[in-house]
């Protein structure tokens, strides 16, 4: 009779051990946006998970990443930038079962759909604001209807983004006219040459209502940013819009409107994905989601220069600058 009682007691003592929270190890950069997302995640899931936060410096190497995982032995990873993502992909290739199967959520990294093609361990939330969100939110605040949008892209890098954006915008009766800037070749020089020869001509086409600027370091670089892009945005009446907030800043006078990531809400979206992993869903099934929530900024000086009339009743959640 005593033995079963002891067994029950032993099981009861072991319960807290069995029910201990799963451990999430975060690898991230140290800057403000990363802090904001991490804080939001802590608020969302801090009560359910044991969270360890590790900041990777510019000079951090793979060994630091590897050692941290081996010492903490987390149940899953959160990877907040491309460096952490590439380290995690490398870690998943180590020989032991733990490393091979360690799951992760990635966010605040670029080109995630391409980076994670065929990856079974990592699901993600894209950092780039989709054209659908950017353009429909712009359309809501202006009086003119938007039918045709122009975008320059690099075929080797953005083909899938463009294909998806075209299909999504079609649902809103918006045509995305996409021009491959790699038509003369893929080098920065060739891309730049193509843009110089074709940008203004394409923008001046009568039916273009808007130019969507994709942030890309080959197309927009130190050599051509002011002389080509900013200059083109000032030489015609077609507004430029972007997913980068600083492009709509007053001092830049480049884009008339931006819809950039809302980092607090991104934290909530990431947390939802982490909970899905905890619930047993596979990263492959969760795949790569679009970022949902954005911060909107309208540069009124640019809007006025572009002769764009805004609908003030629809701007209550838009940050207005340059009145």
């Amino acid at each position, binding site marked *: 009779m005593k033995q079963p009682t002891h067994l029950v007691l032993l099981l009861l003592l072991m319960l807290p051990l069995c029910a201990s929270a799963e451990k999430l190890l975060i690898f991230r950069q140290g800057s403000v946006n990363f802090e904001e997302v991490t804080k939001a995640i802590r*608020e969302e899931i801090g009560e359910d998970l044991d969270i360890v936060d590790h900041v990777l410096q510019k000079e951090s190497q793979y060994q630091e990443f590897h050692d941290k995982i081996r010492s903490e032995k987390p149940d899953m990873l959160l990877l907040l930038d491309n460096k952490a993502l590439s380290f995690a992909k490398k870690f998943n290739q180590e020989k032991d079962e733990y490393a091979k199967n360690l799951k992760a959520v990635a966010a605040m990294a670029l080109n995630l759909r391409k980076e994670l093609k065929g990856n079974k361990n990592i699901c993600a939330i894209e950092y780039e604001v*989709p054209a659908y969100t950017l353009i*429909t*939110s712009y359309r809501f605040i202006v009086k003119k209807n938007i039918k045709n949008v122009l975008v320059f892209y690099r075929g080797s890098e953005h083909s899938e983004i463009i294909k998806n954006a075209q299909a*999504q915008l079609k649902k*809103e009766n918006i045509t995305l006219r996409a021009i491959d800037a790699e038509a003369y070749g893929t080098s920065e020089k060739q891309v730049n040459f193509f843009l110089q020869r074709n940008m203004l001509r394409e923008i001046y086409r009568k039916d273009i209502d808007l130019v969507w600027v994709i942030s890309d370091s080959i197309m927009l670089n130190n050599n051509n940013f002011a002389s080509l892009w900013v200059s083109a945005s000032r030489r015609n009446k077609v507004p430029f819009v972007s997913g980068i907030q600083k492009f709509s800043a007053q001092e830049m006078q480049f884009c008339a409107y931006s819809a950039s990531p809302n980092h607090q*809400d991104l934290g*909530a*979206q990431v947390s939802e994905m982490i909970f899905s992993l905890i619930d047993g869903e596979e990263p492959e099934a969760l795949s790569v989601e679009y970022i949902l*929530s954005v911060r909107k900024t309208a540069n009124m000086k640019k809007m006025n220069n572009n002769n764009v009339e805004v609908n003030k009743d629809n701007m209550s959640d838009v940050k207005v600058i340059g009145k």
Partner: protein
Amino acid sequence: MHVKNRYCEWLFLLTILWVSSLSSAELQVYCTSTIPVNERDKALKADSALTGTNITVFGKFREFESSVKSSKPKYILISSSFLSINKDYKAVYQLELNGKSSFKYLILSTKPEWTKEKMASGSVGVVDELGRSGTKKYVQNNVGKFKKVKRVTKTDDLMPLLVLENANYIMIRPDNYEILKKKFTAKTQKIAESKTVGYPILCVLKDTPQGEIDALGKITPSTLKALGYSNLKKISGDNK
């Protein structure tokens, strides 16, 4: 004379206590809406019926929930489902829209393959009104089973969630959908409706004096309009 002075002192003290109890009254609000938080906050703070009440309008359910837990405000304005997870409050007023106190959520999809029959194998997007486990149960009880319930923080995020295929279905209030249609023109199909559920309710802590409850009933129609509603209906004792 001495007795009169004593009486005055007591009266003064009681008045201070009464005033301080009034000034500590707090109204915390969380309702899904397409109207920005700052606009709703401004309208409530301008209402003379709420003078002396500290008002906070939350944009996220998690923030509201943790604030209610820690500060236990006297009054809350919240979706009608909230009382299923919190027993400290009683509903005293029902918000109405165009003469109706209840509605049915719409379940929408954009792709023909996501039919009513396939709901159990699809994901549904919904604005967070009850937290992680509460929302899941609420959706299941009022609509049916989905493979996955995806919570978003804002009504505005529902249409991108659907069109960008982060979810196969969305669950949305009909009046909110009418507003979103001005922003998004993508065609959707109605797959199903939820059971009938009530619009938000104004609740008070269970020991709140009747005088305070009556005062809350004087919130003006213009404030209600700014919140997205048209009327405030007293809930009778039986319905509380």
